[in-house]
């Protein structure tokens, strides 16, 4: 059974939308509160590797995409969460689950201003520390310096 089907069965109630772009590319939309649970299942039980996360500023929300790779089958699973509150977006951190998520969450925090709750070390990663706290360069309506 493809990995995407296993996730579908496990989280049939929580899944908002599922998009199968191809045999090896599946995008699964979830409520932000369900992300830690789903990520734990994908990472620990299905032995997927956390690839990275992408943060996207869209007109009505901030999307966080968690990309996982199931290397044994080559499937790429993407868990999507939409953060509706663009003024104060926040989501549970995955860094306590795997260390590989620590840097990318720091990056999304500084680039898009998303707060990752319970992150062990949420500070700037790439940008200069002198920059103002509310400067988020990947926001479309970004503040000019």
């Amino acid at each position, binding site marked *: 059974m493809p990995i995407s089907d296993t996730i579908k069965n496990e989280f049939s109630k929580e899944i908002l939308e599922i998009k199968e*772009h*191809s045999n*090896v*590319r599946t*995008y699964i939309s979830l409520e932000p509160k369900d992300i830690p649970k789903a990520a734990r299942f994908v990472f620990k039980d299905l032995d997927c*590797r*956390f*690839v*990275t996360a*992408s943060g*996207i500023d869209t007109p009505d929300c901030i999307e966080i*995409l968690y*990309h996982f*790779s199931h*290397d*044994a*089958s*080559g*499937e*790429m699973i*993407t868990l999507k969460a939409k953060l509706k509150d663009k003024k104060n977006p926040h989501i549970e951190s995955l860094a306590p689950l*795997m*260390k*590989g*998520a*620590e*840097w*990318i969450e720091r990056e999304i925090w500084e680039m898009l201003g998303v707060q990752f709750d319970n992150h062990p070390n949420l500070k*700037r*990663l*790439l*940008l*200069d520390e002198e920059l103002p706290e509310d400067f988020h*360069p*990947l926001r479309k309506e970004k503040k000019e310096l």
Partner: protein
Amino acid sequence: MSHRVIVPIGPYHPLQEEPEFFKLYVEGEKVVDIDIVIGYMHRGIEKLSESKHFDQVSFLVERICGICSNSHPFAYVNAVEDLARISVPERALFIRTIIAELERLHSHLLWLGLAGHFIGYNTVWMWSWKYREPVLDILELITGNRQHYAMMTVGGVRRDIRKEDIPEIKKMTHDLIPVLNMFKGAVMDDPVIHARTRKVGILTKEEAIDYCVVGPTARASGIPIDIRKDDPYGAYDRIDWKIITQEEGDIFAKLVVRVLEMYESIRIIEQCLDKMPEGPIDADVKEIPQGEGIGHIEAPRGECFHYVRSDGTNSPIRHKIRAPSYMNVASNKVAAVGGTISDAAITLAAVDPCYCCTERTAVIDKDSDKKIMNGWDLVRLSQEKTVRLKKGLSK
């Protein structure tokens, strides 16, 4: 009383090729913690990409890295082709594979030279870089450039491999095998390399999974992942080759993985040259529809990942890039800690510690975190010592 000393390596250091900052916390000779600061090379390429046409982005992402300047465009075109469901002509897939493997060859040879240099084995450095030159010459022959080949384009490649060049490429790969044999002998048998790399900088399998490391770093820790096999792209599923893994997770294992991988690269290139069909090299893509796509490839350092989202216009509205080192560098936090400071150079692989920079050293009390001796105190100590020595000599 044990003193915790901070030894800063970087951000600018004569032996580093790129600015990065490792703050080593040292007690005696032992590294007890490490702080990694990056961002000195941040150029905002993800944002820049949003202002470029889909065709231009492949040249932009080529500039991310000089060494694996084929990997980023390759992952990017795979992402756009996934998004737009483009099928690439067979011949182009083979050419892409050849370029990618030539790049892996020269990149691994470059690393091998640097690794030799960092453990003070400069003969390996000079040899390795000498034998890397013919690979670059072949890349220049095919693409016109030693680096930044500009070969990848959405839907295919930009240059064909000419028939008359094939014997020269084969001659280079043929001549490289005795060189690799020599390196294999030098690495596997040399007691100095054994002493400096075995059981040093160990990254266990569990730690490798936790830090989500990729590429040779993961394979040297016993994780058999390789995107070329797992999610085949290019022509990798049409030829015969194998994944190289080692179980130990130390520097020696990483060395062995890279050396043996070069043999596989040669096998792949030779098979591609033989099996490459005739035909077009470009699918002639006109426009990119709305949607999202993921492309990931096995760069010399591991998985290079690109995510592209399009709203149907000329440019991506979001382009996420994750280079392999993003995952691998963070794992130094466990690999370097617990080792001695003299091993840190080779463990961090790209840096060399500088003990002489006394004005950048501070002696800190471990319990109170208070500075008890600064750079000037060390200068004073050294001046006092010189005076003592002079007195001793004049007696």
